[in-house]
């Protein structure tokens, strides 16, 4: 019964519908159970996925692929969604919106699960739509500003920008896919790969893969398709920014692996230099722009652009070590980024501010919050012993092994640049005088989440082998397909 491999998707789909329905039917007070219900659905889905970890077979004539790569990413997306749902606990104040909010997150996650498995372009496109449309709604539907009761125009602006650019990039992607279909006569990625073995000389083909790269680059936040990132992250509810910065970015990477690498691996010599240059530009732009930010969400947005650049290094290397480096980097980055965003949520819930200068003296007002944020920022900066260090070491070692020395040097220079702006926040928190001594309360559930996230950052940094071994198996099985 190979169809059982789709049980996790079914669970998420049914949970999402149930949440949507109950969101209308339930009494106002009972709606707090909806987040619980969503979380339970996700836990079950993860459990089934883990049972599938050794599965490797196609479904419906290669339309869906169940293999370690898909299982890896599905678990990744589900776990991230779980965290987002938990930290969204107190976000939604409008009772009419509660059901929709959690259902939208679940639908978007379902879309991500589908694209993790996609082996065919139409499925991929539909899955991508399922990822994006709920996100457009989630970004735009920002709650009113608590302190003033005003409409959140920043959220609306962020949403509009995200929708317009998102639609545009999807259109471009579709255009690229159409050309690809026209040239190869098939929609199945595997067959496209077999039909495209020779050198890429046909101008239409070059155009098509540039368009496809553009479409996926938008999700990753790759330069020059990154412009939506800072505004959207700043304007969106922080929970959704976290979701975008971790899950949606990883979705871009799974698309890149599944479709771009999957279809075009035969002609890698032609596009690897392009990916290399884009990775370098992405790192530099993200890090240099982050230097001058005063809003922590914007800073994290630019830093997430830069981290997309680091993770692209592994794609440019395209060896077993490179791919597993990218996957491991996504894990390391994901933990740290979630931890940082969680801390930002706690802070802004209590103070209503996202300005870095308001973090002054945080160690006095909330020692644990300051510590957790410090750990996550240092991990993002790649300081040992945190996960980010192991991630950077591993992926850069793969670049050295692949003899991509230019990329290696640029990436390391960027690591040094980034330290400055991460340290700036740490300095504010630990050395500046607070404007008020008022204690910042950390709700118990956030305390637990922060503990889990920061411990994950530390433990993965101390003993990365557990995850590196998994990502290596995934990468090996993925590359064995070529």
């Amino acid at each position: 019964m190979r169809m059982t491999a789709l049980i996790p998707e079914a669970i998420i789909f049914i949970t999402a519908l149930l949440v949507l329905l109950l969101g209308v039917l339930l009494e106002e007070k009972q709606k707090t159970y909806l987040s619980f219900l969503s979380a339970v659905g996700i836990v079950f889905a993860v459990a089934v996925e883990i049972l599938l970890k050794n599965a490797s077979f196609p479904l419906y004539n290669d339309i869906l692929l169940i293999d370690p790569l898909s299982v890896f990413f599905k678990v990744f997306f589900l776990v991230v969604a779980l965290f987002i749902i938990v930290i969204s606990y107190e976000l939604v104040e409008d009772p009419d919106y509660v059901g929709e909010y959690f259902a939208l997150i679940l639908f978007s996650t379902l879309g991500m699960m589908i694209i993790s498995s996609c082996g065919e372009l139409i499925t991929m496109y539909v899955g991508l739509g399922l990822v994006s449309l709920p996100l457009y709604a989630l970004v735009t539907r920002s709650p009113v500003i608590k302190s003033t009761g005003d409409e959140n125009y920043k959220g609306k602006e962020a949403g509009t920008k995200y929708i317009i650019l998102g639609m545009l990039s999807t259109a471009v992607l579709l255009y690229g896919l159409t050309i690809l279909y026209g040239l190869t006569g098939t929609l199945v990625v595997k067959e496209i790969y077999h039909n495209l073995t020779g050198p890429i000389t046909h101008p239409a083909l070059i155009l098509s893969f540039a368009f496809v790269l553009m479409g996926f680059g938008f999700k990753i936040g790759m330069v020059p398709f990154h412009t939506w990132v800072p505004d959207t992250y700043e304007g969106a509810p922080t929970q959704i920014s976290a979701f975008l910065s971790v899950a949606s970015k990883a979705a871009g990477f799974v698309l890149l692996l599944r479709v771009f690498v999957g279809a075009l691996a035969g002609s890698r010599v032609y596009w690897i230099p392009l990916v290399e240059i884009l990775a370098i530009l992405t790192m530099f732009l993200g890090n240099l722009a982050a230097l001058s930010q005063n809003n922590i969400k914007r800073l994290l947005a630019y830093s997430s652009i830069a981290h997309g650049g680091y993770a692209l290094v592994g794609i440019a290397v395209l060896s077993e070590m490179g791919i597993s480096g990218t996957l491991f980097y996504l894990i390391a980055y994901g933990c740290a980024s979630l931890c940082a965003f969680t801390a930002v949520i706690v802070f802004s819930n209590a103070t209503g501010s996202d300005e870095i200068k308001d973090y002054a003296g945080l160690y006095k007002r909330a020692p644990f919050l300051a510590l957790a944020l410090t750990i996550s920022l240092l991990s993002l900066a790649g300081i040992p012993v945190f996960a980010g260090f192991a991630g950077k070491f591993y992926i850069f070692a793969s670049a050295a092994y692949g003899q991509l020395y230019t990329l290696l040097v640029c990436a390391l220079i960027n690591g040094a640049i980034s330290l400055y702006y991460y340290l700036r926040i740490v300095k504010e928190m630990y050395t500046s005088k607070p404007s008020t001594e008022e204690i910042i309360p950390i709700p118990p559930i956030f305390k637990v989440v922060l503990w889990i996230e920061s411990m994950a950052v530390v433990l993965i940094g101390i003993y990365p082998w557990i995850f590196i071994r998994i990502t290596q198996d995934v990468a090996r099985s993925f590359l064995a397909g070529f």
Partner: protein
Amino acid sequence: MAFPILSVIILAPLAGVLAIAVIPKQRLLAIRSTAAAATFVSLVGSVLICVLYNRVAGGMQFVEKLPWIKSIGISYSLGVDGISCPMVLLTGIVIFTGVLVSWSINERVKQFFINLLLLSVGAFGVFCSRNLFFFFLFYEIAVLPMFLLISVWGSGDKYYGAYKLTLQKIGGSVLVFIGILVLYAVSGQNTFDIAALSRADYLISVQKILFLVLCFGFGVLALLWPLHTWAPIGHAAAPTAASMFLAGVSMKMGAYGILRVAIGILPEGAKAMMPYIAVLAIINIVYGAIVAMAQTDFKYIVGYSSVSHMGLVILGLATLNWVGISGAVFQMFSHGVMTAALFALVGLVYGQTHTRDIRELGGLATKLPIITGVFVLAGLTSLGLPGTSGFVAEFLVFMGAFKAYKVITVLAIIGSALTAVYVLRVVRRVFFGPISKKWENLDDATAFEMIPLLILAGAQIFFGIHPGALISLINLGAKAVAVKAGGGLL
């Protein structure tokens, strides 16, 4: 499996950090004594390995090995040889005395000791690692603690000092990181094990480039001119214990990196490039001494004297022969305890006078006889007076250097003679001459403050009179390197 003494040395301060973290912050005495106890364990451990090291067998001893990331040859592997032993001992001495000197810190005591202990974890780790991954991990671990130590507990232009020091060190680390990864890639061994990497064959062109990359990368910490600029500013801004650690241990981590990684793995590259590095070392020696003569801030003087003395270390390493390298390592140890003593004394004086301007001080000897005595001793070690450890070190370095570079050595000797000028100038200005009214009620070091001073002074005298205790260790390690680098025995 034998008792993992090296892990204990490395992890004792970490255990101290965890213990301090759970002590309530009002219980100052408990926090301070925990820090002292943790570092004391490391100190005892480091004395033990120096005593117990089997001088007949040589090589790597007290080895420990655990696989870590198997697919790319990373293992948690520790071990010490004749070069690392003295360095571990130095770290033990400096960090323990650093904790004692910081007893009077009253501001955010808990965080202070947590940061200070974290520094030592990194240093012990660097000197004990046999795998480049862990070497680099420990090398980098101290970035944030040092940043916080300076920017929270520092003085003067502390933010500038903290940023300059941190960013410059990270700049060096980038070069080291590049060097390590490229070594891994070109060696074709798929391992980060230092011994395995040093057995691999590298093209001579690769050796030359990589050697320079690593040498300049580590050179930032080792104060190689012109990468030294963080040191005086950083020292001036840092609190006493951090200054002691920076000058006493951090700089040695740089020099140790040059010796163990750059020279140890790339001897051919070292042979080709060391004459140029020797020229930079000369600039270090002479430039550091001349600038030190013109300073009026106490800490700047000691900071620039470090620039000059680290030049001696680099010169010793540049000789690539047995005697020169032995001298360099001995100088690393000697300068470590000497400069730690100087910073501790400057801290004691500054704590009472609240000025470090030597023009304002004067005649303190009448009021502070013990501090004066230890300062004069450290000053004499600094200028290499026979009977102190500084003499042995300088003698060996110059002996080795004269064999390798005649002209340069003559210049170096002249340069290091300048040490006498600025050391004696400080001694005269600060401690002798007429005493100003406002210093009438200064107090000398208390009995408790004398403990660290006596340890540091004792080390300088003991190893000056009985250098064999360390030389017998250092020789073993230095010989292996010198033979490999083809520098000969003398």
